[in-house]
């Protein structure tokens, strides 16, 4: 099972995402932003970081990278695609997912161990979890507040497309405590916190994050 991990200039968590794929038992293939070639991968991760310095708006410049064209087409055709943090921002900027990620309400970069509940388990990236399961993974970003208009919010809630919510105090001002969402089909997922930093309790707050990566491997076997 080959999972592509895209590197944009300024991407930081590509090696961690690749490690998470390996830990889960998959093969990680690195994809370069400037190369419109998906190298035959079965799924793709857009990892965290500060692509293009997060200048202008997070993800705004990266979404126009050459690799995005075949990627968008493949994802629209059903290929599993996970955007973590900056990757989520890219997905929102590319309108593959609704809404936008905006400045944290306290206006600081925030790095902390965050509890989430998994609310949707029938997506390509969350099937290893049980509904309502609480997990602990790092949250780290400056612009992680999920924003959208009321209509979109009602749609997301109504269709059950919120895959994970923050537990407890709202860390960044996200509407309805949204930590991650999916598209209708369940193959594209955007998640603000970082499961790739929680695959081993030696280096992370838990090993809870591995579930996202084992999920997609299962989904692809099917």
């Amino acid at each position, binding site marked *: 099972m080959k999972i592509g991990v895209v590197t944009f*200039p*300024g991407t930081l968590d590509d*090696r*961690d995402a690749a490690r998470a794929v390996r830990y889960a038992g998959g093969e990680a293939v690195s994809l370069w932003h*400037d190369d419109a070639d998906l190298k035959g991968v079965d799924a793709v991760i857009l990892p965290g970081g500060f692509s293009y310095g997060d200048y202008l708006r997070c993800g705004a410049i990266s979404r126009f990278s050459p690799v995005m064209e075949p990627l968008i087409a493949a994802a629209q055709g059903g290929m599993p695609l996970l955007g973590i943090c900056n990757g989520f921002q890219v997905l929102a900027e590319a309108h593959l997912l609704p809404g936008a990620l905006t400045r944290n309400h306290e206006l*600081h970069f925030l*790095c902390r161990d965050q509890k989430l509940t998994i609310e949707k388990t029938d997506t390509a990236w969350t099937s290893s979890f049980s509904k309502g399961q609480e997990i602990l993974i790092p949250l*780290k970003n400056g612009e992680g507040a999920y924003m959208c208009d009321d209509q979109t919010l009602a749609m997301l809630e109504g269709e059950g497309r919120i895959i994970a919510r923050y537990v407890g105090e709202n860390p960044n001002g996200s509407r309805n405590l949204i930590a991650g969402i999916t598209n209708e089909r369940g193959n594209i997922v955007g998640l603000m916190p970082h499961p790739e930093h929680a695959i081993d309790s*030696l280096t992370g707050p838990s090993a809870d994050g591995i579930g996202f990566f084992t999920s997609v491997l299962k989904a692809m076997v099917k």
Partner: protein
Amino acid sequence: MALDTVLIAQANPDAAQPFAELGLKPDEYARIKEILGRRPTSSELAMYSVMWSEHCSYKSSKIHLKQFGEKAVKSDALLVGIGENAGVVDVGQGYAVTFKIESHNHPSFIEPYQGAATGVGGIVRDILTMGARPIAIMDPLRFGPADAPDTRRVLPGVIAGVGGYGNCLGLPNIGGEVVFDQTYLGNPLVNALCVGVMKHSDIKLAKAAGAGNLVVLYGAKTGGDGIGGVSVLASETFESKGPAKRPAVQVGDPFVEKVLIECSLEIFAEDLVVGIQDLGGAGLSCATSELASGGSGGMKVQLDKVPLRDPSLSPEEILMSESQERMCAIVAPENVARFLEICAKWDVTATVIGEVTDGNHLEITFNGELIVDVPPRTVAHDGPVYNRPLAKPAYIDEAAQQVVNPPLPVTAAEIRETILTVASTPNLADKSWVTDQYDRYVQGNTIQSQPDDSGMVRIDEKSHLGVAVATDANANWSYLNPYEGAKLALAEAARNIATAGAKPLAVTNCLNFGSPEDPGVMWQFAETVRGLADGALEMGLPITGGNVSFYNQTGDVAILPTPVIGVLGVIQDVRTRTPMSFKEAGLELYLLGATDSNLSGTEWAYLHNMRGGTAPIADLAKEMRLIDLLLEARPLFGAAHDLSQGGLASTLIEMVLRFNVGAKIEIANPGISLLSETPGRVLIAIKSGEVAQLLALAAKYKIEAAKIGITGGSALDINDSSIGLDELRKSHTETFKKLFG
């Protein structure tokens, strides 16, 4: 604008030059003339003035820093020592680790965000220059009083700047310090440390060897950053109207640096460079003269080839610009095409600006005219050396006379009150408000970070080899006795490494002081260096590099002498480290090391406005026995945490809050027991069944070991007093939010 060339300098030897405005003394100017056998061109004057500045030439400190070489221990672990961009240490399995601290104090006072950000950027480039991948940063910081209005301007900006730059580079922040004192109000200290790792074979040096090899400048374009001072050259020598405004502040672009790191590492991996140097202070002046004098000595540079962000820059300004995110590489001609190709891949501007030549002339031309022709060593290494007068300041003996007797808690209510005060005082309060703004997870190798005693990162995923780094300074003790203060800071940093189970290997330092022209300050400095050199020798640790920051003073009030000492250690398997606290109830708490009643220089005395007394005398032989004990007894420990500022009180607070497991403590003489800061102490948690083994080892290493309590519960109970963990946490964590939130 007329160009001052070597020919003109020869033809017009008596032209007046603004050397004083550039910070050169008349005798220094005379020496330049003597070296060149003529007056310098304005470009040469620019180079000498900046390279012979205190910051670049170490003219006041050199004579003292020599001791680090003279007293050095012979260490097989040291692969590259003082003199290069950063020292390199062998940590085994073919890995080499490099680390260094630098200061960016003054710029951070002027523009806190950019000052701190570019401070991080600069030290990271120093580490990259050695051929290493940067893997972690730390940020020892000092500010004025926590509630001073200017601290509310400086601190949030500095924190945002350290985070803004470091986070964007993808470097985990694994520790640092935040300390407040009145003397830092106009002189905040922003020190930044970076650690990097490489294979032995990848070590790179700053040398331009091999005639015919090319000089490649790559990274950001050159702008007018940080050259406020040099504009006098343009205004006085050339045009009466003067040049456009030149910013004194440098603005960093962390995105460009991140790309520069990846691009450089790809270049290193293909072995495409002969020598390399980052551009930091003194920009191209420094890089070209250091590269040339580090190699065979000759170099030709075409300055007009330098890509400019601001086309109005004069050659003098291009030579002195401190624009960030630039590197200079020496590349064999056959490798240049590939070098440029990698740069193009990363969208990094790269330009061949010159070549290495035979001989010992650094020749710089501008549009074909020779504007610099100097022996590079005279610029880079043969700067002036001062043996500045020094005198023990009067305050030392006065302070020694003072009685330090702050009120001590006796009753249960007083103990409670004391613990809450210690928990919430800004110097000892929880620093999450700061560290939550730093990414500690990126790269996926962080084993320890704040609030642990040391930062620890894994460097090999398979073998689990790791390194630990701690930085420490105790300016209160350094103020009372700079010699002992330096030794005590060294011992503390080493101890902080060892509590986690890592073996101390090497030392770096950042010496922050007032004006070297004040004999009292110079004495503090000399005593500090002597203490550090003696201490490192006694502990068998090589000093691999460092940095000196002078002129941190407001009027004639200097900052407290603040030698920040960094110690690096190695741990064979990070999975076996000792955590700083306990998750289990029922463990016995043992205090290793004895406590004495000296309260001088403690946080408790400071809280009661008592700054006098005498510092403890460092017992490094005992510190080393304690370290050996910690390393040998490690398998027995459930937790180990160092005692330092805030004494046992602070250590207990941090331990019970770490994993939210309380403790029951029984101590005689609670005031002294809780508040003394006697060095050489560690609190450990151990299973009852293993105590006998511990005591045997403690006896072997002649370290006192005393049971003071037991873990468990949801409160910190000390004798008859009790504080619930929730209340304690609130008091510990609220301080920073209230002040800066």
